[in-house]
């Protein structure tokens, strides 16, 4: 059990460093969710099952969902602005032609 716990703690530290070093935000979010799941197992090994359940539901589930939806929203805003710029250009171009 001791070795298992040490392996889990090393994996936790590895996940944290990976989150810090990855370039892509999506990868960082997914690694963070894995980190929370490993954390839940560590709670169980520390004899606090209440914390384990809460961490699995809240840390891996809800925080991850919120981060992912934020990423999606940011990508969407990007497309929106591009579209609207193109539309504006189109409209401006049309206006020029009619003149």
């Amino acid at each position: 059990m001791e070795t298992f716990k040490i392996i889990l703690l090393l994996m936790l530290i590895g996940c944290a460093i990976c989150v810090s070093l990855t370039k892509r935000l999506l990868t960082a979010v997914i690694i963070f969710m894995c980190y929370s799941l490993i954390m839940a197992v560590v709670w169980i090994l520390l004899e606090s099952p209440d914390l384990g359940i809460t961490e699995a539901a809240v840390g891996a589930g809800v925080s991850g969902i919120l981060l992912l939806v934020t990423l999606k929203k940011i990508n969407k805003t990007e497309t929106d602005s591009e579209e609207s710029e193109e539309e504006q250009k189109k409209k401006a171009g049309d206006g020029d032609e009619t003149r």
Partner: protein
Amino acid sequence: MKLDKERFNAWLNDDPDRLNGMEEMAEIPYPPRERIKEKRQELQERIDAQPVGQISFLSRKFWQRVYSVFAVICCAVMTVVLLSTVAELPRFGEYRDTINELTERYIVSGLKETGAVNIVAGIILDYRAFDTLGESFVLFCALNCVLILLRIDSSDDVRHHELYFNLAHDDILRKSALFSIPIVFVYGIYVLLNGHLSPGGGFSGGAVIGAGIILLSIAYGERASGALISEKVFKTVCCCALAFYGVAKSYSFFTGANHLHSIIKPGTPGEILSGGLILPLNIAVGMVVACTIYGMYRMFKKGRF
């Protein structure tokens, strides 16, 4: 809508028509990374070209270097100090000094006084119940902040959002959600109701149920989850649960906070209807948490209910 079998055959034969119903999604261009990068670069060039404020370009670079040097020193010093403190601590697992009279009281007479087999539930919902009320209010306030920051009122924007986020036609997601949603809900309700007997309780159960509702909303569209929790239901449940929590705990304190004169008795330990006020309080907290989590997701995704 085609029959499932036909769609499966079409999928097997690699028929492009299997995207039936997903054309809407396909029409929307995915943001190409190169264009985003180009825009970034343009922005950076524009920023670099103009002298910003009173600080010149050179000194801005200089201050950035100073900042990073100080950050490295700060991190290193903090790590060394904290680790040297940890090395001086008593050995892990043998630190019995944290067991003081407070802990002794909680463990030895916790069952007699609160009726909860799970001592952690007894602590957070009986001995420190006002702490938990404040915690629920923190969640509620967070939801209100999110509401203020992300709410969208114009109906035009809403239509655009719906188009982009529509995943409800994905077959794999639907079929897997069909099997997992009931399990998630049953597990959440189990954790919620058995909070005083086994690990779990209001927060974890509520979070599981909220995650289940989010899954329902992703797989079957907003209409399905909206039928479960509409804006009106959401408001009513949040306010009623918080008010019930406050009233129930006030009653407990009014009768002396020791359950001696309360009409609600702790009951037989180990049964589901035991633990005095802990079970109703767990249900109230769970409802608040589930609604809050779903509300946050909805605000982030759509900007309105």
